């Protein structure tokens, strides 16, 4: 094998130095199959040599400098069916004539399912416009349901954030930042969530939401679930490429409705005519969409809307100096105004309202210069910017029985609460008793921009096709938001200012190179791809400095039997593929710069007077955030094998994968000791100043409270106090030392079309497995628990994977779908019936550690020491989790043996025993670790699309149209539950499209 690879390398090197060889050109015409008219702007691509041309107003095109030999020519144009075929170019071809059929339901080749990209060496599937229209896509994330084993989205409204999450499970509680690691690109513009400061949940950082992408203007969606090209960085869980419509189109009006959503759109691709010299002025694509979704079909008051305008200008320069080296150019801008708004329902209390903007601007340009040189084929330069405005506002009525403190101070110290009128800058503001409104804003404006330069070199050396791709990317993430603020400081609750815009930008510079070689071996064909990507992330003026990471990736595809050679044979196609690769995900700001939090304690509260006057003292302590200079970027190790086979017209596609997420981002908690001075209300008992004349002040450093006499009649009095001790939590970003494993098998079987009834049947599905065991040693001080001495709890336990009853989970599920599609070209109608079945759904909570038991079964649920021998898995009994060791407030550095001390304390120190007991997490739940198999469940969807001539089409769908109200059985709890939490509710929709 080594020799074989070596010979390939030598061959490539030698070939690269070969003298110039004869090249040819191809000139042709692209015509509309229906009326014979030229198809202007049709794109003609020679895929083998990566050369291209665009047809002029007469449908004519020319490509020059073509190396001789076999090639693949692909002709595509918006509104037409792409024509791809092999071509042998051994001479100049002057009259290549192509008739492109219009893309409509009169064609037999129409499909409404995701299609494998047969040329790809990794698993990649494309969902085209017809399929998207047929399911009446309202949210691009819904396209996931068309992937193998895909499940219809249970939430048809846009009120909740929708994200892509590739090759992840049905549970929303999976760790490892899956959606964050899924790259989503719209026309090459990356939707990044790196600039987000949103709170990191236990499952990690959320991915970029896609609610604000206009669905009607989507032409196709490609989903790369396997190991992608090194061209793609800053992702760990696959790539979703959303392509919008580009090209000349008629006016298209779309009107859609379902119980929760209304949508109308208008689009048009304008040909801008010609210059005096006959050059094209290009195409301007315009699209406007208005979508409004409501959470409750009976009420319009809680709604999400998007108003989106997209303009794309594209042109070709192929005259003058560009006559032999044409340059394609496109520039696009799209703006969205919208968001969610819970307007005041007139039936409810008025004026309460929450809004969340979802405004965005996406802009990009792309230059593709075909050089067709020996040493370079083409060069691409692209740039993009995505700016979002996610300002949220919460306007709520508030009322207080007594002047009520709200804390805003960010500096450490003791502070007396004061009215805003007396001190607008007070660290603690007293909100006056009575009624009012408070308004809280969170200004969140992330921005991401990038510049990419890529060069392609495609050469044929004999029968060997060689392509090299090399490029450099620069991208930056930042946030212009100012975080939380309020214009109602007299009524708003606790909040602390944290200006996102003060956080330094995160820059990433990446370089990559990829070799793609295709070698014919007899009648077979071997395609090898090897790539390496290097990311360098620079965060100036920060603890993180520069971080470098390498992402090697390899793909292999061996085509054993090609369809063209196998007509009439039983096995008509056979290919296998294998991939392995590493991918790196940059962190989000919520990991790098978590929003600071503050420990606040009410250290004194006076009595209140008859007039409602009350004094309160708070101690404010900014919680320490430790910036982890050793933070590593999260990685994903992907492995995949796949087989594609066609047996007598039945196409079978299989893909198995094994992915491991390493160094997953997590925010961890530490603890630091803290003492403060507390003044009990009873200290006022000795105060001789009359209640109504008391005025309080506090020493910012010591917390000592002084009472003054407003009348001046009596001298100041200092109140007695005592010192109290407690732990305060700290936050730091870390990498998990425990991998998250995901594995699975995906299958698609497209049965041979049953022509007499115009019907195709697809059986697709997926087996998915998930396993994680958190072995990080995590500190936990029980929250809101009082020590047995009545003081703050003074012990910290250190647990493997936290103090939960489980530190991991394994799950598996098998989903399978049968789609029966009847397509009758003569009447231009397509009907599909889809059954979604979850045949196997298994979950088990795990509690394990290296070298012993992490949890124990108890013979008596009320005795945490009544542990039984063996694994807790072996029993259906109450359980307990002990810390590995513990520390105390007074001796924070000594790791004490928990079990031994607990045993000792039980006999000798009841108070210590009571406290240590709180570090043991026990439950009388006897089925915690029991395997949970959920009984199979099903749902049925129905869709129909009918074209009325060339001017209109209408689609209707009904999801879960049997309105399944069944129940599922869970073996873990031994109970039955409603199926409604597993399948979509019954809903339906209608879309009308007009073209003119």
């Amino acid at each position, binding site marked *: 094998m080594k020799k074989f690879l070596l010979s390939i390398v030598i061959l490539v090197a030698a070939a690269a130095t070969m003298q110039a060889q004869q090249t040819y050109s191809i000139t042709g015409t692209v015509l509309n199959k229906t009326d014979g008219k030229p198809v202007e702007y049709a794109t003609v691509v020679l895929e083998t040599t990566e050369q291209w041309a665009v047809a002029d107003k007469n449908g004519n095109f020319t490509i020059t400098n073509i190396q001789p030999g076999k090639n693949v020519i692909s002709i595509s144009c918006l509104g037409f069916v792409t024509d791809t075929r092999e071509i042998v170019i051994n001479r100049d071809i002057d009259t290549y004539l192509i008739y492109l059929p219009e893309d409509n339901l009169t064609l037999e080749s129409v499909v409404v399912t995701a299609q494998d990209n047969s040329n790809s060496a990794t698993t990649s599937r494309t969902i085209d416009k017809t399929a998207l229209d047929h399911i009446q896509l309202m949210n691009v994330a819904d396209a996931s349901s068309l992937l193998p084993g895909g499940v219809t989205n249970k939430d048809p409204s846009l009120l909740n954030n929708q994200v892509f999450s590739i090759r992840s499970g049905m549970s929303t509680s999976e760790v490892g930042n899956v959606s964050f690691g899924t790259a989503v690109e719209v026309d090459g513009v990356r939707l990044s969530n790196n600039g987000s400061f949103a709170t990191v949940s236990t499952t990690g950082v959320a991915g970029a939401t896609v609610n604000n992408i206009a669905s009607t203007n989507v032409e196709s969606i490609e989903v790369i679930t396997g190991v992608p090209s090194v061209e793609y960085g800053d992702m760990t869980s696959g790539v979703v490429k959303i392509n919008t419509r580009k090209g000349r189109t008629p006016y298209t009006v779309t009107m859609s409705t379902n119980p929760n959503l209304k949508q109308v759109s208008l689009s048009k691709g304008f040909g801008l005519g010609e210059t005096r010299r006959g050059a094209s002025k290009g195409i301007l694509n315009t699209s406007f969409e208005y979508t409004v979704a409501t959470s409750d079909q009976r009420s319009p008051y809680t709604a999400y809307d998007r108003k989106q305008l997209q303009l794309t200008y594209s042109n070709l320069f192929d005259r003058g100096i560009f006559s032999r080296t044409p340059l394609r150019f496109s520039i696009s801008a799209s703006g969205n105004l919208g968001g969610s708004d819970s307007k005041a329902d007139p039936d409810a209390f008025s004026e309460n309202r929450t809004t969340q903007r979802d405004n965005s601007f996406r802009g990009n340009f792309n230059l593709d210069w075909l050089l067709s040189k020996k040493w370079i084929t083409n060069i691409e330069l692209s740039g993009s910017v995505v700016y979002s405005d996610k300002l949220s506002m919460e306007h709520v009525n508030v009322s207080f*029985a*007594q002047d009520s403190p709200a804390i805003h101070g960010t500096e450490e110290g003791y502070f007396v609460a004061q009215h805003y009128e007396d001190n607008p800058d007070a660290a603690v503001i007293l909100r006056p*008793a009575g009624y009012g409104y408070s308004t809280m804003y969170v200004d969140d404006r992330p921005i991401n921009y990038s510049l990419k330069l890529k060069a392609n070199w495609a050469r044929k050396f004999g029968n060997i096709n060689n392509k090299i791709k090399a490029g450099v990317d620069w991208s930056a993430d930042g946030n212009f938001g100012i975080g939380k603020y309020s214009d109602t400081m007299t009524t708003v609750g606790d909040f602390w200012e944290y200006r996102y815009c003060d956080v330094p930008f995160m820059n990433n510079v990446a370089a990559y190179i990829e070799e793609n070689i295709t070698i014919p071996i007899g009648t077979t064909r071997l395609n090898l791809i090897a790539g390496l990507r290097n990311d360098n992330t620079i965060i100036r003026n920060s603890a993180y400095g520069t971080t470098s990471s390498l992402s090697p990736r390899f793909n292999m595809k061996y085509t054993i039997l090609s369809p063209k050679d196998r007509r009439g044979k039983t096995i008509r196609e056979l290919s296998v593929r294998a991939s392995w690769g590493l991918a790196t995900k940059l962190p989000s700001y919520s990991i790098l710069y978590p929003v600071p939090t503050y420990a606040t304690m009410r250290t004194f509260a006076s009595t*209140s007077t008859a007039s409602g006057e009350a004094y309160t003292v708070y101690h404010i302590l900014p919680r320490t955030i430790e910036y982890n200079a050793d933070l590593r970027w999260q990685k994903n190790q992907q492995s995949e094998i796949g087989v594609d086979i066609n047996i007598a017209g039945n196409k079978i596609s299989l893909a198995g994968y094994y992915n491991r997420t390493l160094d997953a981002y997590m925010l961890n908690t530490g603890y630091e000791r803290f003492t403060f001075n507390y003044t009990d209300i009873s200290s006022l008992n000795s105060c001789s100043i009359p209640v109504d004349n008391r005025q309080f002040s506090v020493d910012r450093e010591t917390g000592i409270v002084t009472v003054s006499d407003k009348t001046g009649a009596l001298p100041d009095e200092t109140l007695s106090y005592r010192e109290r001790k407690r732990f305060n939590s700290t936050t730091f970003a870390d990498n998990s030392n425990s991998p998250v494993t995901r594995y699975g098998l995906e299958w698609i079987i497209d049965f041979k079309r049953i022509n007499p009834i115009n019907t195709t049947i697809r059986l697709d599905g997926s087996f998915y497995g998930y396993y994680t065991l958190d072995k990080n040693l995590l500190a936990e001080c029980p929250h809101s628990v009082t020590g047995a001495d009545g003081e703050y709890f003074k012990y910290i336990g250190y647990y493997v994977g936290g103090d939960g009853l489980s530190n991991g989970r394994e799950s598996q599920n098998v989903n399978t779908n049968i789609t029966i599609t009847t397509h009758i070209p003569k009447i231009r109608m397509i009907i599909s019936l889809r059954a979604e079945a979850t045949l196997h759904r298994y979950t088990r909570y795990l509690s394990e550690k290296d070298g012993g038991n992490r949890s124990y079964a108890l013979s008596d649920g009320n005795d945490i020491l009544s542990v039984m021998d063996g694994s807790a898995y072996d029993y259906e009994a109450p359980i307990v989790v002990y810390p590995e060791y513990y520390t105390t407030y007074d001796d924070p550095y000594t790791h004490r043996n928990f079990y031994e001390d607990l045993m000792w304390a039980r006999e000798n120190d009841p108070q210590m025993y009571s406290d240590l007991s709180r570090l043991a997490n026990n439950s*009388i739940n006897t089925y915690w670790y029991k395997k949970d198999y959920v009984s199979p469940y099903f749902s049925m969807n129905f869709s129909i699309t009918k074209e009325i001539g060339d001017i209109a089409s209408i689609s209707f769908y009904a999801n879960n149209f049997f309105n399944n109200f069944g129940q599922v059985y869970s073996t873990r709890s031994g109970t039955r539950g409603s199926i409604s939490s597993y399948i979509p509710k019954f809903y339906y929709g209608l879309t009308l499209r007009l073209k003119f």
Partner: protein
Amino acid sequence: MLAAMAIVATACDPKTENPPVDVTITLMYENEVFAEDGITVTLTATDNSASYQAETAAGVATFSVLPGLYNATATVHTVQTVYNGTVAVTVSAAADNSYDLELTASEASQLLIKELYIGGCQKDDGSGTFMYDKYVILYNNGATELNISDVGLAFLDPFNSNSTNKYMVDGVLSYASQGWLPAGYAIWWFTSDDVILQPYSQVVIAIEGAIDNTVTYSNSVDLSDGSYYACYDPEAGFTNASRYPNPSANIPTSHYLNTFLYGKGNAWAISNTSPAFFILEYADIEAFSKNEANYDYTSTMPNVKVPNEWVVDGIEVYRAGEEAKNAKRFTPDIDAGYVYHTTKFGYTLYRNVDKAATEALPENEGKLVYNYADGTVGIDETYGTTDPSGIDAEASMANGAHIIYMDTNNSTNDFHQRRASSLKK
């Protein structure tokens, strides 16, 4: 189609399909028939849609009711002892409908929960409910002075009557046979050693908001009176400033109740809707609360196991509208019934007057006020109740009367839902 509709219509006719059937309830005490005549047995549909009463003959009561699910309850009140019992009854047209109702004996107490106000009231601006004004009134129901300084306040787990009860195993409360009750969260105790209740007098304890809450919320209550007591102990961890505002200067610190938080949180989580609230008496509640040996871990947070014999009085509140889920938490020896409560409208749970005993007090001659009209019958359509004695206790007390309240250890008999707090005059 018409035939099908006719069949459906016919099937829905209860007169032809479900005629009334006989049900016999036999009162039992310590495995023998409690062969008394004239004891009222109540048969209440579990969905609260119907209630029937019948008197026993030799300990057996007979009903004729439609098939369905019922609860049968009975209370026998003697001078010193109360016999209570309840049994679930499934009335079937095809089976024998004979059930034994086991009675348990308990003693009547001189210290009572006179009123429990936990449901909050409407805010003045119509924006919702204010709920941080909970209080309880304890009452000396006898003619002798009481020192209640060893008394504590507690509630049972689960906090709401309609919540899943982890102590319910196969339809039986697991602690019923063990002689203790699971007190959730924390138990409050008096800090003063000298909390004296004169005969027929009361003490108001502000559970939350020991201030004049009417300043902002006119429907609420003024809990700032100097004679009142207050649950206030921020050092114990109850630091929620909304529930525990700076207490009124009128209330001396000696009137504060303290506590130890063995649960988790920053406020005492007594239910807004449906607590099983009780008072207990023990000399050192603090030490008992802090002793891990007294904890039970059946629930999410530890509960303290309070011996039944320490329980002085209790009230079982059921959440209105949750008939399908409401379930008893007190065992019958503590409290055999329940009182429905509609939350958020300022309604309060108020003890009924023992008419016979009150009228029998010679000093009440001419001081009792009748025609009590402060119940919620008529204003709370489904769950409204009133005091069947007809005596207006508050008006009578204002008149100088001594009221003896009903104490049958059965909240169904002992309490009604009053339309307004008794503190609102």
